[in-house]
């Protein structure tokens, strides 16, 4: 009986640990350095705005508050040519993997985002 209790307690402990281990593993995969990203973002600000909201010219996307891993993916695609844009290709090809991680972390971290998911914005929802 005592043995069974111990096994059951161990199982519960393992069940608790698994999500914690996953949470720890995830940020280590793609986390950039926000401060380093800020220092590298001067060029980006000309079109995407100092606040990352691209308020001047609507042809450029707002970046503030966008998901970091999506920004990172987009920059890698501009760099590889998988996403075709002559302006962004010119910038992205100069960026290292670390630059991309840092810039993505920085723009994702900016306050005052005007972006939102579509939750609550769909007819009949």
């Amino acid at each position, binding site marked *: 009986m005592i043995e069974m209790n111990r096994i059951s307690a161990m199982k519960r402990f393992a069940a608790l640990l698994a999500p914690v281990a996953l949470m720890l593993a995830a940020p280590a995969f793609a986390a950039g350095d926000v401060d380093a990203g800020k220092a590298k973002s001067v060029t980006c600000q000309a079109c995407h705005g100092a606040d990352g909201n691209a308020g001047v010219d*609507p*042809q450029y*996307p707002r970046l503030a508050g966008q998901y970091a891993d999506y920004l990172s993916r987009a920059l890698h695609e501009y760099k590889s040519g998988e996403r075709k844009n002559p302006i962004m290709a010119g910038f992205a090809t100069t960026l290292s993997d670390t630059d991309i991680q840092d810039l993505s972390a920085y723009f994702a971290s900016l306050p005052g985002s005007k*972006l939102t998911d579509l939750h609550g914005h769909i007819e009949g929802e």
Partner: protein
Amino acid sequence: MTRALLLATALSIALPCAAADKGDAEAGKFKVYTCAGCHGIVGWHNAYPNYHVPKIGGQNYEYLIAALNGYKKGERSHPTMRAQGESLSDQDIRDIATYLSSLAP
């Protein structure tokens, strides 16, 4: 007088163009129904490759137009978005971009 005439002429040319360029937000509200399957869930990931589906509500109008046309023409490679883009007319794209760009967090 001449300057006022010039201004009026310029405006009469510019205004209808701008109006024709924008879509119908009300129509767009219905057309984004499909988009919500992936873009409507906070923090939702693509199945593969594994990154967040981007936030598109509140995004800039002209950028949304360019992005959707990019998927439609194959200048952007995401398979699901390419299929979506190909199913949309120019009017659909304008309506969707008008509605999405009107949203606020």
